[in-house]
């Protein structure tokens, strides 16, 4: 099925259409006057990151801006970047892309191809900037098909971006960051101390898991990480 990477979707079907489109409009306006150097774009896990201690105490010092929208699917992010959200007046140095968990009706390969499409679009519009790509997170308290799907997507991502044999124009300057480790316990469950609803991260969950994204950004921007 080509529903993902051929057609980017404005989220018409979402129940509170107005809520979501307003977020997009605001982001387009913010991009025009922004002096940020790092863009985070994705779904609710990205959106809620901005309320975490990790963001307020460390990430924000890197001059970041957050274009997360709750509920966003891969094709929604593709639509947003094709419709103004990458039109920054200053030079963006890095984009952190994190979306895919909401595509629960897609195959892992479809999600993977959709992410490739987004990466191509980012490169087309912003040139040779760094793209930071965290792996998708597990979800659900117990083992389940959604967890397997996200894990399978990660297998494709690792093969594409961490395997020199597959290096090409798409993989250049894309930095995969493995963040899905040490979340599922030995008993195969996820604790609500890490994900309060078995999908979204707690404050300490963000510190533990997205801390690695912060470290990678510091490395790329040549900034000393805060302790």
């Amino acid at each position, binding site marked *: 099925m080509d529903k993902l990477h051929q057609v980017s979707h404005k989220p018409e079907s979402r129940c509170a259409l107005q809520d979501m489109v307003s977020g997009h409009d605001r982001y387009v306006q913010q991009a025009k006057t922004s002096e940020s150097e790092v863009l985070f774009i994705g779904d609710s896990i990205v959106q809620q990151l901005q309320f975490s201690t990790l963001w307020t105490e460390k990430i924000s010092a890197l001059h970041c801006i957050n274009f997360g929208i709750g509920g966003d699917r891969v094709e929604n992010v593709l639509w947003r970047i094709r419709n103004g959200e990458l039109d920054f007046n200053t030079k963006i140095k890095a984009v952190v892309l994190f979306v895919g968990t909401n595509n629960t009706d897609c195959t892992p390969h479809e999600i993977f191809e959709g992410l490739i499409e987004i990466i191509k679009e980012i490169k087309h519009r912003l040139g040779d900037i760094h793209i930071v790509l965290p792996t998708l997170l597990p979800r659900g308290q117990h083992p*389940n098909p959604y967890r397997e799907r996200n894990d399978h997507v990660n297998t494709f991502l690792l093969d594409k971006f961490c395997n020199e044999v597959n290096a090409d124009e798409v993989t250049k300057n894309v930095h995969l960051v493995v963040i899905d480790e040490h979340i599922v316990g030995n008993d195969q469950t996820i604790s609500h101390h890490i994900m309060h609803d*078995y999908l979204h991260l707690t404050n300490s969950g963000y510190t533990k898991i997205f801390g690695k994204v912060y470290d990678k950004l510091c490395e790329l921007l040549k900034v000393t990480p805060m302790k």
Partner: protein
Amino acid sequence: MNKCKVPVPVDDGDGDHRWISIHNRFLSETREKDADVIFIGDSIVQALQHTDTWNELFAPLHCLNFGIHRDRIENVLWRIENGELDNVKPKVIVLHVGTNNHTNTPEEIKDGIVEILHVIREKHPDVYIVVPTLLPRGQYPNPVREKIQRANELLKSNVDGLPKVELVPIDKGFVQPDGTISHHDMHDYLLLTNAGSRKAFEPVHELLLQLLSEGEPEKDLTPSE
């Protein structure tokens, strides 16, 4: 038939069953924790728990938060009928649900909330029930906002005056003179920011203080260690 009055669980189908996991966790909490106040409801209630407002105003009052994102009236009804208010003796229950029932009519929303009130009352004849009014949503004026407003009017005429039930208006002060809602109050024009939750829920906090001290003037409300 009003679907709001028929208890229905959220079925994750082939999914990750998070809703039932969360429900089961709430059941454990009723067995493990002693709460004076239980908040039960939808996205607004769940999101509230992650704000500074919750930590500063409500955590010290020994509150439990049984909010689940996206819950509709009929889902909350199912949860209450399936144990979430059993094994507990709170002094106050705060009920806030309805915004996700925007496909129902205002009358159906009102009737669904009244149904929940009946069920709570059967389980807890003496508990105070606090019902904050439903909040507006969306950046610009829209039909859902009108529906919510109409539902609030119906709640006012049907719920105010029920014994030991207090309707608390929390919806004023969000729609600005130009008709918009600011993302400083609701970061996605639905869920409250720290500032927005302080504005909306401070009246609820004040009412809770009164209700918790009524009949127990000596009660120490300072946070325990």
